[in-house]
């Protein structure tokens, strides 16, 4: 018997392989997020004070909106050739499929952030290359992919899929978004871990709650 982790990793690795071949998801997420950032540099007078004030919000709003399009795309790819059903035919429990797909989505959004965040630093003239940023980005991406994978699987059969996913996804992740924006804002203002501790704890609680609940609930979503 191969372990569950091997199965999860196999699904994630397969997603990564497909992504390397057609580059659809990462390019759409990074491209969309960058566009948001660039448009804001025109829309707002970015002196140092303004950049610190609005920068974190713009960054995470951009990533959230871009992430939705990416999640949509990622699940559509799995449904196009009914390959999701092939996964469901495998003798594995459905929570492993969820965790594997969530891992794939996590990797995509993380890679997109590796492109977006440095460019954010350049455009907004803010120092973001700190360990705090890594922690914030990891926690937020984890929550995004946990909730996003669940809702993407749910909206896949909806007529207006492109509309439905953000409508479900964005309100639910609002607390996580607040945590990301607030801790980033603490960070660019040069404050320490202890100032953002409460927000990071909130993000951890959110991630744990939704990963557990989603894995538990996922089998009800797939079967029709």
């Amino acid at each position, binding site marked *: 018997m191969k372990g569950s982790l091997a*199965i999860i990793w196999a699904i994630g690795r397969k997603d990564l*392989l497909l992504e390397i*071949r057609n580059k659809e998801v990462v390019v759409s997420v990074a491209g969309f997020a960058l566009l948001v950032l660039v448009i804001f540099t025109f829309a707002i007078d970015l002196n140092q004070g303004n950049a610190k004030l609005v920068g974190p919000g713009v960054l995470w709003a951009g990533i959230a909106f871009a992430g939705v399009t990416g999640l949509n795309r990622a699940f559509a790819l799995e449904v*196009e*050739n009914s*390959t999701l059903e092939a996964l469901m*035919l495998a*003798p594995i429990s459905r929570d492993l499929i969820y965790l594997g797909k969530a891992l794939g989505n996590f990797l995509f959004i993380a890679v997109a952030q590796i492109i977006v965040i440095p460019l954010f630093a350049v455009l907004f003239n803010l120092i973001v290359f700190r360990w705090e940023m890594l922690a914030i980005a990891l926690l937020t991406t984890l929550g995004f992919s946990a909730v996003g994978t669940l809702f993407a699987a749910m909206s896949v059969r909806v007529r207006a899929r492109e509309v439905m996913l953000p409508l479900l996804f964005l309100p639910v992740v609002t607390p996580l978004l607040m945590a990301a924006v607030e801790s980033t804002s603490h960070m660019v203002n040069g404050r320490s871990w202890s100032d953002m501790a409460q927000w990071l704890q909130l993000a951890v609680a959110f991630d744990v709650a939704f990963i557990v609940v989603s894995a538990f609930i996922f089998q009800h979503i797939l*079967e*029709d």
Partner: protein
Amino acid sequence: MVSQATQLAVKAEVVVKNFGATSVLHDLNLELPIGEITVLMGTNGAGKSTLLRILATLTQVDSGTVSIFGADIATNGPAVRALTGSVLHSPMLYADMSVRENLMFFADMYRLENVDDLIAQTTVMVGIEPRIDDRVRTLSHGFQKRVALARALMHDPQLLLLDEPESGLDSQSVDRLDRILDEYRSSGRTVVMTTHIVEHALELADRAVVLFDGRVGFNSENPQRDREAIQEIYSANRISISSLESQPQ
């Protein structure tokens, strides 16, 4: 391992499945013994594909119970799926991965050992080894169907579920499929399939089950002998359904 003492490959009891206002399966009861090839027949929309999807655990029943080799599929999903191989309507393959990559990925999903040998054997059996390193996207529909068959056979399932496996296959491939199914039966395994080629199915099958109005209309243990009766029911059903549809609202 799921117990096989019951000697029934498939047992469905009062299965109901609706999709909104459409009733697909209605109090369906069915028992299929181990070691037979069963052909499911019926007009379009009679519920053949839905029944196969339920057996493959892709669709949940609204009510009733289904067990495979004595295990309730609602509670033993993974164990039942390990004993089952399915080829349904779509080939269900990743278009941007090669045949080998697809098979290797699914071998991981089925937790198989000696993957390379297994893939070599299976691809020879279904006749796809010349193009094993081509992307699935570049293959014809018939070829993709054969890859799907390889995926379904790789883990040596006890129960094979096939939804119109001949569609898109040339006559050579259909013969190859027949040989594989024969082999399967002779090694004591079970096949449940649907087909649109009734004549061919009746020759091959040990049992023919005609679905009508969401339940078993006719269950023949000797399709060759009952050929005419089946044909008759088949056409009678068609008439009664079309006459119903032509009634004014």
